[in-house]
């Protein structure tokens, strides 16, 4: 029987990251993927010949610079092209074309409100300050406030001392960023509804909250903690589509001696005396391992792969209550030409970035209300990117690929699953909305695929289609993510670790959960080795 130091389940970007760090440390690592392609939700697919879709995630920002450096991802082919801004179309003729250049942004906002143009400086500064507070927390296991162990207490004290150094008003501000709704936070700075809509858009991506729900301001913050091009929270396209991220990490993994096998789904984890000893593949083949790591979503990792006899009833219950409600769908479209939006000049450079068809905060909130009722979305939030504008490798010359992210789509409808007919209906809703904003769009479509939350679950294991492997609400963040007893990447089964986005710091193609899990595994391995030596 084959034996490896580490078997990693799933070849999404977090699994690959964990595997790469472990291989780099000298361990023998085998990564097993059920699909015939790697990458999970960071994947490029050529479904329509010559057109490369980033079929799930579509833009990059949050991949940790430390990981890019440690794994030498640039050497392994990772190229990111930041886009300079985004466009928000409210559907009533108005638009905002944002820019990363402060003067351009100021001028643009001033078209709608001079006061808001000035307030934006303050907002940007405050956001950066909050992002700076969060950043150090990302590449480490969260402090455990319930632990009485000296090491943990020191961590908690250090965290509290950092909080204290903010001063009363600074700490109060941080509390606001973590607890307010996006709408209420933005109300503290801005008066114009289109400015608020533009900024609130990042609060609704992938979330089971509305822009008026407390806690949605954190999601805005979560989308700003990236550091592609310095501390700007900038977003960009990956050359070759998002799959290039996974390919680069896989290449790094292989360069350190790691092995990846596709079409090798795992059906269970072998456990003996409360320790993981290996895995059993769907084919029946068994592989032994000293350590097993899963990058799958929590419930799959625990409830599908482990024998419940090995787990306490309350643990199983807690895990099954982990919230993973999906709220997003995706359209991937091959186009014969660029869309022409009536409300904005075609030569606006911000069109290189994401184009949001969103209405005002009230419209987004109503879409959220519909989602709670599990009805067919009537007016969903749409975010369109056309990465082929910047990346010529994605489509033939003059042709394009478009990625449409649809927010507030229920993972199941009140009257049942997403049937083909229902999927078509959703597709019509989305395409009609785009057609209204860009007449002639439909005629340019040469291929379109629509992926509902159910499709995302079936294909790549995103439970209930939640793109973050678990909702990003305070009760499921930091030391609560995914559960208080699992926040340190270890499970009740010795030698079995979790490294996916269900773990801190959460989803968004960060790689941080994978890196943090690897660090924990290595630390535990050193400890066990030390104990064995001293024994």
């Amino acid at each position, binding site marked *: 029987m084959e034996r490896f130091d580490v078997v990693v389940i799933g070849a999404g970007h977090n699994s690959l990251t964990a595997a790469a760090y472990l291989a780099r440390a000298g361990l023998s690592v085998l990564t097993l993927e059920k699909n015939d392609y790697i990458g999970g939700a960071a994947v490029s697919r050529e479904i329509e010949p010559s057109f490369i879709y980033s079929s799930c995630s579509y833009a990059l920002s949050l991949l940790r610079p430390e990981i890019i450096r440690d794994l030498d991802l640039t050497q392994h082919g990772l190229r990111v092209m930041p886009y300079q801004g985004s466009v928000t179309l409210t559907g009533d003729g108005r638009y905002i074309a944002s820019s990363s250049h402060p003067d351009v942004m100021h001028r643009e906002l001033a078209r709608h409100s001079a006061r808001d143009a000035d307030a934006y400086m303050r907002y940007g500064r405050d956001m950066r300050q909050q992002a700076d507070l969060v950043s150090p927390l990302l590449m480490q296991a969260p402090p455990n*406030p*319930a*632990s*009485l162990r000296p090491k943990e207490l020191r961590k908690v004290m250090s965290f509290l001392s950092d909080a*204290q150094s903010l*001063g*009363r*008003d600074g*700490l*109060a501000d941080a*509390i*606001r960023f973590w*607890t*307010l709704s996006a709408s*209420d936070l933005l*109300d*503290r700075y801005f008066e114009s509804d289109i400015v608020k809509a533009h900024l609130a858009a990042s609060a609704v991506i992938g979330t089971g*909250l509305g822009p*008026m*729900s*407390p*806690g949605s301001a954190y999601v805005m913050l979560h989308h700003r903690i990236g550091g592609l091009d310095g501390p700007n929270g900038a977003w960009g396209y990956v050359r070759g589509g998002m799959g290039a991220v996974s390919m680069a990490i896989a290449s790094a993994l292989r360069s350190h001696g790691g092995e990846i096998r596709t079409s090798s789904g795992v059906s269970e984890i072998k456990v003996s005396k409360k320790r993981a000893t290996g895995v059993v593949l769907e084919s029946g083949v068994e592989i032994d391992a000293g350590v097993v790591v899963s990058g799958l979503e929590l419930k799959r990792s625990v409830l599908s792969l482990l024998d419940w006899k090995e787990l306490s009833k309350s643990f199983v219950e807690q895990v099954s*209550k982990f*919230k993973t409600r999906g709220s997003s769908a995706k359209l991937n479209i091959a186009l014969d030409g660029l869309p022409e939006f009536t409300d904005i000049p075609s030569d606006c450079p911000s069109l290189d970035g994401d184009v949001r068809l969103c209405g005002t905060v*009230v419209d987004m*909130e*109503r879409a959220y*209300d519909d989602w*709670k*009722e599990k009805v067919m979305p009537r007016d969903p939030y749409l975010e369109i990117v056309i990465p082929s504008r910047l990346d010529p490798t994605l489509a033939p010359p003059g042709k394009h690929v478009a990625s449409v992210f649809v927010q507030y789509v229920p993972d199941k409808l009140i009257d049942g699953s997403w049937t083909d007919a229902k999927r078509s209906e959703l597709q019509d809703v989305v395409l009609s909305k785009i057609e209204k904003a860009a007449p002639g769009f439909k005629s340019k479509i040469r291929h379109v695929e629509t992926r509902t939350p159910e499709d995302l679950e079936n294909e790549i294991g995103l439970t209930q289609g939640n793109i973050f492997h678990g909702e990003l*609400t*305070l*009760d499921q963040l930091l*030391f*609560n993510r995914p*559960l*208080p*007893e699992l926040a340190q990447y270890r499970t009740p089964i010795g030698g079995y670790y979790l490294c996916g986005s269900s773990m801190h710091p959460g989803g968004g193609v960060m790689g941080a959960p994978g890196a943090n899990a690897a660090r924990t595994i290595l630390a535990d391995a050193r400890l066990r080795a030390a104990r064995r030596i001293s024994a």
Partner: protein
Amino acid sequence: MSGRSNSFDVAIVGGGHNGLVAAGLLAKAGRRVVLCEALPTLGSACGTSTLVPGVRVPKCAHVVSGFPPSLIRQLKLKKYGLHVLQKNVGRVALDPDGRHIPLCASAGATREAIFSWSSRDADAWSGFSKTMDALVRALRPVYAESAPKLIPDNLRGRLEWLRHYVGERKRGASSFQKVLRLLPSNAADFLDDSFETDLLKGALSLDASIGSFHGPYSPGSLFYWAWQRAGETASASGTLQVAGGPGGLTAALTKAAEAYGAELKTSAPVQSITAKDGQIRGLVLQNGDEVSCPIVISTVDPKATYLQLLGPRNLDAGLVGDVNRIRMRGSSAKVNLALERIPTFPKADESTLAGRLLLAPSLLDVERASNSQKYGILPDHPVMEVTLPSIMDETLTPEGRHVLSVVIPFMPFDLDRGWDAGGDILVDKVVKTLGEYSPDLPDLVMAGEVLVPPDIESHCGVARADWHQGELTLDQSMMMRPTPQLAEEAGSIKGLFLGGAGAHPGGGLTGRPALHAVAAAVRFSKETRL
């Protein structure tokens, strides 16, 4: 003002129950106290009014929740006429078909009632109650005391935090973790995780969110629920029903305060609070009268206190900005009905009807009601809390007649169609909904009134019809209430204290904001030897 001295030790702005508590305590302690109330009557939301001759109704609040027995004793309110009819007034999930679920009776009675709906839920009840108790227990010490400082600047402050931490941590790591996880969570998920019965979840989620701007799906709604419960259970008597309606409490507080020597002025709206060199000088009333005093306790909402009465001129821009941004959107409306006789609710006896009746068929119904508030519209199906105080209280109506009091949450203060038309539509919806539970009720209505949010503001003196004077969200609670700066110091105006719902611990007829303000005022006067 002729001849009488207008110099006092303490002036109190606002004659709601908090103002009266403060007046009574300070007067009893020997201070010269004047209280100024703008309306012709005292009590604010804690009042009983006459609907039609001979028929009295709780005007706004209909029960007294969390008023400490120790305070009743301290002010000797029973001597001054307070008569408690019921303690620990229970809640009932009302069902149109009669399968009501009493929620605060003995656990056995509750389980039995739930069992008729779902045996699984009946089994889950005790686990749910335990968890709720754990949350409430974690918050109760903070509720009952002054809030610790956000950033303690001395050993005492740090020890206060340590005490709260140790108190909670010693219940075990698992319990501690559970509390930390649930507090930022939402009531809906907690209820969906615990139960399957729609009626049970509906009623509990209404209880969880009544008086809030946010519905039960919102993060923070579990904190709000636990916080309210902490207030209610901080005294062993829980929620009280008082003879004469809440006005009976006001009457006793009034008599007591006057007996102790406080001067209570009604129809005496305050024009401004005067300060000089960062020190309170007194009040100026709208009629021109002046009151001179070194201490002012304001029980009106913080926005009015700082932006109208004190005036932005006296304050730094940061404070003005923060006060301006206090969110106060949790508005309610009230419908009061006089009934010919007791209405028939299927399978509900008088002891069931003597409690707080929660009319909320499901979690989504409560959430939908909260949704419409966001858009300034009326809900299709309002959810509501109903009481029939005349069942236990014979003083409200002639024999055989009854009154029915309805609190409707999630009412937008600014209604899209305007409240002139909206009020009638609301009453119709309310009576129609009541008719679904009690078919004979609509025909028994002899008279009725609706107080829409602007009415509650102008007739009862409750700004924005928000009985918390500021939403009780995580960022506007405890050490951040009403703003982080004001939680610690009254905006560097020495001698000014906030004693109303807008201060910690929030609204409800608890008298606790007044207790904290009085303690702070007494400390201040000792320190400054005034």
